[in-house]
């Protein structure tokens, strides 16, 4: 994974990417360690909240209500943000969003000249619209200032987690990346230490110079507050706060789903988000700003833009069963809890949104034209739903999206190219009749006969199956069908008179 970016349009199917990634022992160890640490911290700070389930329900209701009245709250946000001195832009899709941001960046230099560099706060929405690449092509280099995003950028890597994007790398690997890529003038990195302090110090020296020099910043947003026109970002490092306060121009890019109706809704959200995301009671840095400071002091950026991005979100909103996807507040708890993500890491998902939320969000952002393998990247174990702070029933949405995929595969001549569709439709016919089911049970016993071997206990086992069923026998044996089905036994017993047969088993 390097350079080109995670693009669902060109990514391999999940199962293909996963096959390679489960062979990466170092990555799996890193992911296991990091998700385990975060999960343990989360469990501890959630357990100490007696009203956690009530908070989750409140979170769900706030997000649900907002989505039902999204047009109203977005317009309210625009009005209040504009009144406070911000400029609101609307982007239908990723391309339009990129063009708007590039235009605003280019206008942001002194005397309207284009700067060649900007600083950035970690933002999933800008990853989604592949902004950095577009800026680079327009002659503007974006410096990621979030420590993990910096590691990804310097390592020519891709994010593998929506909150902790470099979670697949360990400290030794990060040290190597810094040594190789930082090129700080006057700094000798040949004996850079590997402790968290050493690495944080290197990052600080690298970034501080950018904070003081670069005058244009791009951010995302955790929440847009409709009743005040304010924007909220929470973070752990304070690098975001630097980007929000030092530059002359700030451009915040946000999905239209990020709005909350009232400032007071943050009371719920800012309890749910940090506990779910990083296992902290509160984020170390909570920034909320409203427009620009028009007083003589003139604190912070002089120019502030918000770019509101649709990019298929209104399409998701129109789908009654899937619209709960947009309730997401990007905490990443579902990734940390997911046993599939645990084995593959994030890159297998071929999208900047990995894990269970990525498996439902990505194909919908692609309007089901790409990423159709993602709804199947789940055993439906339900661990994601259990930890979701806004109660998105991810397994239900996965099943709903699977249905959409099956409909695509079953349409017209597609069906002939797909043995799975043919097989499942045939099995469905079997279950519609008891008589046919009985015949199928008999035929199954005959069909498996040539494949079975007897083990030392005289029990028949199958250790090889043909075609797509071979996935089972790659690491598992399968016991052959017993000679008698349960229903045959029960009928024989009824016939013989209950008593004797039950005792004799």
């Amino acid at each position, binding site marked *: 994974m390097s350079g080109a970016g995670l693009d669902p349009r060109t990514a391999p199917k999940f199962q293909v990417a996963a096959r390679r990634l489960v062979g990466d022992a170092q990555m799996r160890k890193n992911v296991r360690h990091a998700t385990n640490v975060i999960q343990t911290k989360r469990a501890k700070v959630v357990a100490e909240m007696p009203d956690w389930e009530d908070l989750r329900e409140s979170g769900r209701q706030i997000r649900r209500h907002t989505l039902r009245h999204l047009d109203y709250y977005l317009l309210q946000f625009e009005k209040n943000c504009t009144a406070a001195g911000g400029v609101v832009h609307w982007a239908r899709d990723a391309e339009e969003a990129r063009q708007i941001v590039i235009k605003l960046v280019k206008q942001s230099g002194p005397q309207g000249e284009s700067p060649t560099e900007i600083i950035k706060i970690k933002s999933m929405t800008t990853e989604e619209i592949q902004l950095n690449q577009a800026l680079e092509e327009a002659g503007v280099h974006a410096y990621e200032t979030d420590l993990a995003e910096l590691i990804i950028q310097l390592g020519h890597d891709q994010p593998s987690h929506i909150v902790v994007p470099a979670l697949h790398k360990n400290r030794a690997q990060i040290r190597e990346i810094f040594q190789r890529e930082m090129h700080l003038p006057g700094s000798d990195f040949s004996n850079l230490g590997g402790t968290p302090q050493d690495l944080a110090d290197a990052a600080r020296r690298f970034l501080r110079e950018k904070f003081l020099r670069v005058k244009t910043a791009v951010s995302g947003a955790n929440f847009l507050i409709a009743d005040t026109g304010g924007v909220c970002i929470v973070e752990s490092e304070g690098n975001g706060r630097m980007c929000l306060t030092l530059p002359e121009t700030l451009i915040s890019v946000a999905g239209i789903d990020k709005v909350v109706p009232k400032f007071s809704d943050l009371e719920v959200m800012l309890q749910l988000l940090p506990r779910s995301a990083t296992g902290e009671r509160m984020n170390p840095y909570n920034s909320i700003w409203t427009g620009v400071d028009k007083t003589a002091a003139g604190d912070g950026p002089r120019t502030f833009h918000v770019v509101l991005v649709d990019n298929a979100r209104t399409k998701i909103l129109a789908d009654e069963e899937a619209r709960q996807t947009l309730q997401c507040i990007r905490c990443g708890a579902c990734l940390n809890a997911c046993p599939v993500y645990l084995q593959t890491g994030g890159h297998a998902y071929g999208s900047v949104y990995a894990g269970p939320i990525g498996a439902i969000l990505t194909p919908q952002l692609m309007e089901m034209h790409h990423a159709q393998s993602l709804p199947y990247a789940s055993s439906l174990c339900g661990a994601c739903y259990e930890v979701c702070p806004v109660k998105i029933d991810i397994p239900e949405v996965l*099943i709903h999206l699977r249905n959409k995929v099956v409909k695509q595969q079953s349409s017209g001549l597609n069906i002939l190219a797909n043995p799975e569709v043919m097989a499942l439709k045939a099995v469905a016919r079997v279950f519609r009749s008891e008589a046919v089911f009985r015949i199928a049970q008999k035929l199954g016993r005959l069909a498996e006969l040539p494949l079975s071997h007897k083990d030392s206990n005289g029990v028949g086992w199958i250790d090889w199956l043909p075609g797509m069923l071979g996935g089972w026998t790659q690491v598992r044996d399968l*016991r052959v069908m017993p000679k008698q089905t349960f229903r045959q036994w029960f009928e024989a017993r009824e016939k013989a008179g209950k008593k004797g047969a039950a005792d004799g088993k």
Partner: protein
Amino acid sequence: MESEEAGRGLRVSLFITCYNDTLFPETGKAVVKVLERLGHTVDFPAGQTCCGQMHWNTGYQEEGLPMLTRFLEQFKDSEVIVSPSTSCVAMMKDHYPIMAERMKDPKITAEVAAILPKVWEFSQFLTQKLGIEDVGAYFPHRVTYHASCHGLRSLHLGDGPQRLLRAVRGIDLVEIENLEQCCGFGGTFAIKNAEVSSAMLADKVRGVLNTRAEVVTGCDNSCLMHVGGSLHRQRTGVWPLHIAEILAGEE
């Protein structure tokens, strides 16, 4: 909790489920044995086939709908319905109301609403409907319990199955690490995403082996078939066994 019903013999209709019928008849026999030992009678509606889980969860929802109507037809006169499969019971509880809604037939919606409270997963029937833990079983082996995801997160079985097992005479029950973690079966997931499923399974098998148990049990034979398939491939000598077969054990 309706423990007062423990004394009265109930007429229990057994929904064996398609895969137990075909692959695990011993589980069905054990269920019959335990229920009869407790003084209940068991009937078996002969036209039953499948709950529809495989189709519904894989995305073949239209194909799943006739299985709902078949179930309603077969079990409409039942007093209480017991099934030894957590995932099938969870399928019914979680999705039958949605399926009924999809069919836009108020009669089916009403029938589903009426029948679902009568449906019990086997261990849940014992601990919650009957309110009992000691079913008079004897099983002198070291056993670990695998909590299937649907039992844990959908049916909220909690420690009900473990309480049943602890009351078994002679048993040495040991807890597995990461009890709440999926074994990686997930129905068609094990086939469609075989590599990831195998990696998840490796974690679960490691957990089973670390307990040094002879037997891994649970309330769902599909998970046990998955875990057991790997235990057999590796010739570990550890056997999967449905909880009903332990509870049916006698001296």
